[in-house]
């Protein structure tokens, strides 16, 4: 075990505030991340926060839907569900029952680049969480009957999240169209035919290939002593053997040579346009400044209600709604997206023209110093606000490590954003917002759609009629 150079996060931040000409900033205690790596390769990050006698315990596996080959898309997510279905030592749901009796909250989440499990509860119960989290890292049962039932649950989840959700379907269409060879092509929840066809053997293989201490990061944030946490981690996770895992295939996205378009005509109420430019992430960018400049560009477009899309388009009465987004925390080439809802009767072609005008503006004129300063102020302040949440602090550390970045980089985010100039934003706009990187998708509602109150009324017991 070795300890990282302690980070004086507040000190860094406060000097930034200072450079925004703020005198007499309040003092705050420094929060240090303690780092250790067990012999089996499990990396442990501990961030003490003693505001309440609570701890969040998170384990992040470096595997997500982007690692799935064709035919078993969505299995990372299906597998995540099965992690609650018992081990050689605990019955199905028993870990959850233990957590519930202790008053804890728990959940898990799967993304393109990660699968993570967490519990938040009284700090003195941390060891119990470690014991059973380590247990399911090594001893998962994968019972066929439990799997058959849980597959039905996942199909219901697919119906809720995707099949019956027009904007989610548009989002799937965007990624499936924009990405060809990259693992970002298919949705996190998977294609329905693949969900139908998973087998227990698929799950077993997934477990063996990805769930090992040397492919995971343990994050503990809360009212804890870092030395004790590392000792406990050694006691419970230490005995889990490391394994040689098959190396990930490169699956680099192939070059795009022209604009891509796709449309979706399904029952829905509102037309929608969703477009994305392929851009580098914080991981794939040649330099971090590129990712920070793209993040600033997203802020210029829709960082708050006074940003360009809302102020110049929505407030000006030209669109009904519009936003932009860029997720820089991705392992692979990602998307810078814009989306909008037309006004009543407005064509999607007109919506597209309005959004592309905004893109051209970013390329053709430098953003104003005032616009830039307000984004920087928001980022500086948000960095403090985010510390109000134990879970979020853990999430930031886990995300960075899992996509392949040093967690210390998270602390440089504010500094990185502050260094961005109008010329930087203009430069990334010119470089990346090209038609050869663009995918445009549209949702065009089928006219026969929409809820209608049926004429029939059925009595539940004593009779009655619909009011509407």
């Amino acid at each position, binding site marked *: 075990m070795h300890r990282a150079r302690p980070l004086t996060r507040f000190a860094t931040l406060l000097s930034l*505030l200072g450079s925004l000409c703020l005198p007499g900033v309040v003092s705050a205690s420094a929060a240090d991340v303690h780092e250790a790596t067990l012999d089996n390769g499990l990396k442990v990050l501990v961030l003490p926060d003693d*505001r309440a006698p609570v701890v969040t315990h998170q384990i992040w596996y470096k595997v997500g839907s982007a690692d799935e080959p064709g035919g078993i898309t969505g299995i990372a997510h299906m597998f995540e569900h099965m992690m*609650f279905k018992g081990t050689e030592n605990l019955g199905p749901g028993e870990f959850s029952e233990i957590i519930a009796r202790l008053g804890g909250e728990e959940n898990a989440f799967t993304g393109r680049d990660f699968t993570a499990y967490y519990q938040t509860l009284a700090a003195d119960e941390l060891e119990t969480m470690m014991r059973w989290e380590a247990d399911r890292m090594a001893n998962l049962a994968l019972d066929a009957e439990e799997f058959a039932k849980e597959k039905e649950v996942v199909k219901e989840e697919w119906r809720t999240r995707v099949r019956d959700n027009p904007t989610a*379907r548009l989002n799937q269409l965007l990624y499936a169209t924009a990405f060809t060879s990259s693992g970002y092509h298919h949705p996190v929840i998977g294609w329905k035919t693949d969900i139908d066809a998973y087998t227990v053997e698929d799950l077993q293989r997934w477990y063996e290939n990805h769930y090992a201490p040397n492919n995971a990061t343990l994050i503990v944030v809360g009212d804890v002593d870092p030395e004790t946490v590392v000792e406990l981690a050694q006691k419970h996770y230490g005995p889990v053997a490391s394994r040689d895992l098959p190396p990930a295939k490169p699956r680099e996205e192939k070059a795009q040579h022209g604009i891509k378009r796709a449309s979706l005509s399904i029952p829905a109420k509102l037309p929608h346009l969703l477009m994305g430019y392929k851009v580098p992430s914080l991981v794939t960018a040649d330099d971090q400044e590129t990712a920070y400049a793209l993040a600033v560009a997203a802020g210029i477009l829709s960082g708050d209600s006074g940003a360009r899309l809302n102020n110049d388009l929505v407030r000006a009465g030209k669109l009904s709604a519009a936003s932009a987004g860029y997720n820089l925390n991705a392992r692979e080439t990602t998307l810078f997206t814009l989306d909008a809802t037309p006004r009543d009767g407005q064509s999607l072609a007109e919506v597209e023209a309005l959004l592309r005008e905004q893109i051209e503006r970013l390329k053709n004129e430098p953003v104003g110093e005032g616009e830039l300063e307000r984004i920087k102020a928001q980022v500086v302040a948000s960095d*403090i*606000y985010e510390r109000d949440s134990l879970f979020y602090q853990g999430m930031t550390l886990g995300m960075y490590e899992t996509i392949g970045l040093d967690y210390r980089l998270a602390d440089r985010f504010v500094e990185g954003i502050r260094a961005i100039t109008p010329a930087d934003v203009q430069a990334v706009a010119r470089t990346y917002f090209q038609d050869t990187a663009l995918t445009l998708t549209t949702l065009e509602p089928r006219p026969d759609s929409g809820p209608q109150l049926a004429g029939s009324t059925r009595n539940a017991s004593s009779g009655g009629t619909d009011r509407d």
Partner: protein
Amino acid sequence: MIDRRHQTLRLIPVALVTLFSALTARAESVLPLETWTTDNGAEVLFYATDTLPMVDARVILDAGSARDPESKAGTASLTASLLEEGSTERDAKAIADGFARVGAQFSASANLESTAIRLRSLTEPDWLWPAVDLMAEVIARPAFAAADVDRERDRQLRGIEARQQSARAVASDALRRAAFGDHPYGHPTDGSTESVERIQRADVQAFHQRYFVARNATVVIVGDLDREQAERLANRLTTSLPAGERPADLPPVPPLEESRTVHVEFPAEQSTVLVAFDGIPRRHEDYMPLYVGNHILGGSGFASRLMGELREERGLAYSTYSYLMPLRAGGRFVMAIQTRSDQAERALSLMIDELTDFIDNGPTGEEVGDSQANLVGGFPMRLNSNRKITEQAGALAFLGLPLDYFDDYTDRVRSVDADGIEAAFERHIDPQRRIEVIVGPDGGKRSDDDQNGGS
């Protein structure tokens, strides 16, 4: 990113409240709130915490959609969204810039019972006070310019259209109507297309004039300030508000008179099923046994009977749960499930069976013990951030609960037993008297759409 937990469809945020118990000395309050009244009559709650250099300030008004004028449902919501669209002194852009350049986060929105205006700021004086003054300005002196009213009304109408493509939103709106009928709780917060089209600038002005007054306001301040600074903040937030008057209490929610089923045709593979039964207002002596009972039946995620029986045992749903809807003037008890439409009837009847069994036989002693352990043990997570403390303090004040409510909370949780839960459920909830809302395709026909969601 997708997570495993079912999403809950709560019509209102239920004040989840628990407490530190063993962790706190008896003599000391679990949530030591300072409280006072401003000169013009606004109630103030202040919680000092120096753990982060930031402040949350919230103004809560008894001005939810329940106060919408007759036939103009959606007025409260429209009023709230117009606040940041312009004041008598500055336009929307200047307001947005004013908050953004000092790193402040501002929002205003209405729900069923209240309108809340929220500010989050750093404590640095040059950043805090301009944001506070700007918030005071938009609360007290909105311009409600005709063009802004027209545009925001159009956007609210578009929002209502957007809700029509979510089965959950459609079901929730239909349940509101069916379960509360003509009571002021009986319309969706955003109103309907017809009601919103009727709202004029004068309606918004009148709503603002009536309800945005000091005596109708609760100010919650949580953060790194001392008492003197908090008083200054509260004064600056409210000084421009007229004293006004608190509105009269809403009429009590009447019991359900008859059972009925509302079917809403919706193009989907799943049906969304919501069932409402009689309930209680938040300030009711049976609240605690019902709360713990609901926790066992359908309020505690995977630990609940509904999740165990319908999801874990039968794989019928991703999401199923129940909740009390304990409002000021009354409430309903609601059960919910989303499932493939051809099995919706079966899921509904299993849900009713679970409720009937629960009322007939009550929970087991073990279930009660487990739930109590969860509620007591989970306390530290209820108040472990400034945001949660702000929400809980605001809820206490708005609901008229004693400010030392948390201090004997665990005792009250522990005082509940299986017989008490069974008796309380039997007193208030009749499984046969219910409103069913089923949103989905007619007759459970499977869609002929492609299997991969169109992409």
